[in-house]
C-alpha cells in the first residue's frame, strides 16, 4: 500500500509501453507528487507518514471499490455517504446498548444492503435514473440518521472498538488490512465470477443482455447491494477511527469516492475501467491532500488546488481518449 507501489508494478509487465499509454492520469499524478513531495518535505517519505496516508484513504477506498462497480454498470450511487453515516450510527447505538459486535455489524450490513436493494431495484427494474434514485436515498438515509441521534455523536462505545483503528497486525494497522481484504474480495468478484462478468457487461450492453433473456437486472441490483454492504464495512472502520459515530460523517464522501473512481480511469460509460485504477485514484487523492498539508498550503488555496488537479488529471485522460 505504499504510495509509489502501484506504478512500477504495472510497468514491469509485458507490453510496457502500451500499458504506460493506458495508465490513468492519476497514476502519473501519484508518481509525480510522490517524487516532488519526497524532495520538498523531509516528512513525506517516512514510514509514519506513508502509514498515515494509507490509514486516511482506507475508508474512502472501501467506499470507492463499491462505487467502481456501480459506475461500471453506467450507474452512480450518491447515497453511499449518508448510508455509511446511518450504518455507523445504528451500529454505534447497538454497541452502546450492549449488543455483541458481530450482531451489530450484521445489522449495519443489512441496512447497507437494504438501501442497495432499494436503489438497485428502482434502477434496474423500474428504470429510474440512478442519479435521482440515489439522491432520494441520500435524503432518506441522512434524515433517519439525524432523527435517531438528534444530530449528536454516539459515544461511549466499548473499548475494543478502537482496536479496529489503533490495532496493529504484523506491523500494519488494522484499517489497512481491512482495505486490503475488501480489495481482494472485490478483485476476485470482479474478475473471477459471473457477478463480475455481468458487472462489466451491463455497462453498454444492458439492453441487449435483457433482450437476450439473461438475468442482467438481477445482477445490477446485486451491484448496488454490494456497494451498500461495503459502505457498512467502511462505517465500522470510520466509527473505530473516531471512537464515535456521527450521523453526517459520510456526507460528501460519495462525491470524493466518485472522483477517486474516475481519476482511476474508470469511465461513466460502457463499463470501461477497473478496481486497480480506483486504488491509484484514492491514493492520488490521499497523497494530494496529505502533501498540501505537509507543504503548508493555506486552506483557502487547498480548496481551489484540489478542484484544479482533479480537472487536469481527468482532462488528460479525456484528451487521450481514455474515457470515451
Amino acid at each position, binding site marked *: 500500500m505504499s504510495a509509489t507501489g502501484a506504478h512500477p508494478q504495472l510497468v514491469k509487465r509485458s507490453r510496457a509501453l502500451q500499458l504506460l499509454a493506458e495508465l490513468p492520469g492519476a497514476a502519473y499524478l501519484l508518481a509525480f507528487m510522490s517524487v516532488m513531495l519526497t524532495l520538498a518535505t523531509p516528512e513525506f517519505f517516512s514510514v509514519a507518514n506513508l502509514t498515515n496516508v494509507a490509514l486516511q484513504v482506507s475508508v474512502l477506498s472501501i467506499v470507492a471499490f463499491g462505487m467502481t462497480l456501480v459506475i461500471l454498470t453506467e450507474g452512480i450511487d450518491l447515497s453511499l455517504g449518508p448510508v455509511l453515516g446511518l450504518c455507523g450510527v445504528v451500529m454505534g447505538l447497538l454497541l452502546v446498548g450492549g449488543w455483541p459486535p458481530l450482531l451489530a455489524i450484521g445489522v449495519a450490513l443489512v441496512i447497507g444492503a437494504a438501501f442497495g436493494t432499494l436503489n438497485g431495484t428502482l434502477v434496474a427494474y423500474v428504470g429510474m435514473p440512478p442519479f435521482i434514485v440515489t439522491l432520494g436515498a441520500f435524503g432518506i438515509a441522512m*434524515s433517519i440518521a439525524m432523527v435517531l441521534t438528534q444530530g449528536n455523536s454516539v459515544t461511549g462505545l466499548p473499548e475494543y472498538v478502537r482496536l479496529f483503528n489503533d490495532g496493529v497486525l504484523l506491523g500494519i494497522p488494522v484499517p489497512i488490512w481491512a482495505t486490503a481484504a475488501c480489495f481482494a474480495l472485490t478483485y476476485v468478484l470482479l474478475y473471477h465470477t459471473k457477478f463480475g462478468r455481468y458487472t462489466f457487461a451491463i455497462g453498454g450492453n444492458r439492453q441487449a443482455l435483457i433482450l437476450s433473456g439473461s438475468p442482467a437486472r438481477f445482477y445490477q441490483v446485486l451491484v448496488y447491494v454490494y456497494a451498500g454492504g461495503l459502505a457498512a464495512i467502511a462505517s465500522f472502520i470510520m466509527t473505530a477511527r473516531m471512537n464515535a459515530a456521527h450521523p453526517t460523517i459520510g456526507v460528501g464522501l460519495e462525491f470524493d469516492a466518485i472522483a477517486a473512481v474516475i481519476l482511476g480511469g474508470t469511465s461513466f460509460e460502457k463499463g470501461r475501467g477497473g478496481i486497480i485504477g480506483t486504488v491509484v485514484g484514492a491514493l492520488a487523492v490521499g497523497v494530494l491532500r496529505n502533501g498540501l498539508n505537509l507543504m503548508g498550503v493555506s486552506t483557502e488555496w487547498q480548496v481551489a488546488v484540489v478542484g484544479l488537479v482533479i480537472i487536469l488529471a481527468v482532462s488528460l485522460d479525456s484528451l487521450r481518449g481514455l474515457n470515451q
Partner: protein
Amino acid sequence: MTMQLARANGAMARPELLGLSPDRLFVVVSRLVALTLLVVTLSILSPHFLTWSNLINVVRHAAPLFLLSAGLTLVVLTAGIDLSVGAVLGLSGCIAASLITGGDPVLGIAAGLGAGLACGLVNGALVSYAGVPSFIATYGMMWIANGLAYVFMQGEVIYGLPAEFRLIGAGFLGPIPMPVLIMFGTLAALHVLLHRTPLGRGIYAIGGNPVAARLSGMPVHRRLVFVYAMSGLMASFAALVVVARTNAADVSLGEEQLLPAIAAVCLGGTSLFGGVGGVTGTAVGALILALVLNGMNLLGVNTFWQAGVLGFIILVSVFADQIVGGRIGRAGGAT
C-alpha cells in the same frame, strides 16, 4: 442511445393531446394536482398558511431556487449535470457584494454575473471540447469556485448593501415582490428561448439524440458551451437576488443549494436522461419544494426530517412518471 431512439418512437406512436404525449401530459397534470393538493392540505392544517403575506413568503423562497435550477435545467436537458451551481452562486455573490458595498453597484453586478459566466464557460469548454464528463468537470469547478471564494473573502462577511440594490431581493412593484417578477420574467424568456428558437430546439436534440444532432450539422460543441455558460450565469443571477434579500454575503451562501436545485429540476419533470422537460416544470418544482418546506415549518415538523421528505418526494414523483410512461424496465442506465 438505442433507448433514446426507442423512446422517441414510442412517444410518436401514441396519440397526442394539446401537443403533449400522454406521459408528458401526466407529468404536467400530476404536478399541478400535487401543487393544488399541497395548497389545500396546508390551508386546512394551518390557519396561517392561506394569508397573503405567507404566500408571498413562499414565492419569495421559490424565486432564487428557481433561478438556480432553471440554468441547471438547460444542462440537464442535454443529459449533463452541473454540480457547481451552489459554489458559483457563493463566489458570484461574494464578488458582487464586495464591489457593490465598495461603492460601485454597476461594476459589482457586472463582475458577479461575469464570474458566473466565466465558471460556466470553463465548464462548457471542458465538457464539449475536452470531453471531460460533466459530473467531474463541474465537481472540480465546485471546488475551484469555493476555493476562490475562500481566498477572496478570507473569512469575512459583507454586510449592509445599499437600499437601491436591495430592491431586487426585498423590494415590491405594487403588491408583487420583485423576486417574483424576476422569476416570471426569467421563466418567460427561457421558455421562449427553449421553444421558439433553433438554439432551444438544438438543446433538446442534443439531449434526446446526440449522434443525430451531430450528424445534422448542428454546432453541438458551441451549444453545449452555451448551456453551461447559461447555468453559471443563472447561478450568479440567483446570487444577486439572494444577497439583496439577506443583505449580506459570505462564502456559505451557496452551501446546501445544490441538492434542492437538482430536486426542483426532477420534480419539474425534466428527465436526467436528457431531451425531455423544460423550465416551466422547474418553476412548478421550485414552488412545490418551497411549499413543502414552508408547510413543514408552519406545522412545526422536526427539521431533521426535511432531507428525508425531499428525498421521498423525488423518488415518488419520478417513480410515478416511470409507471405512467410505461417505461418500466425499458430505460437504459446512463446517469
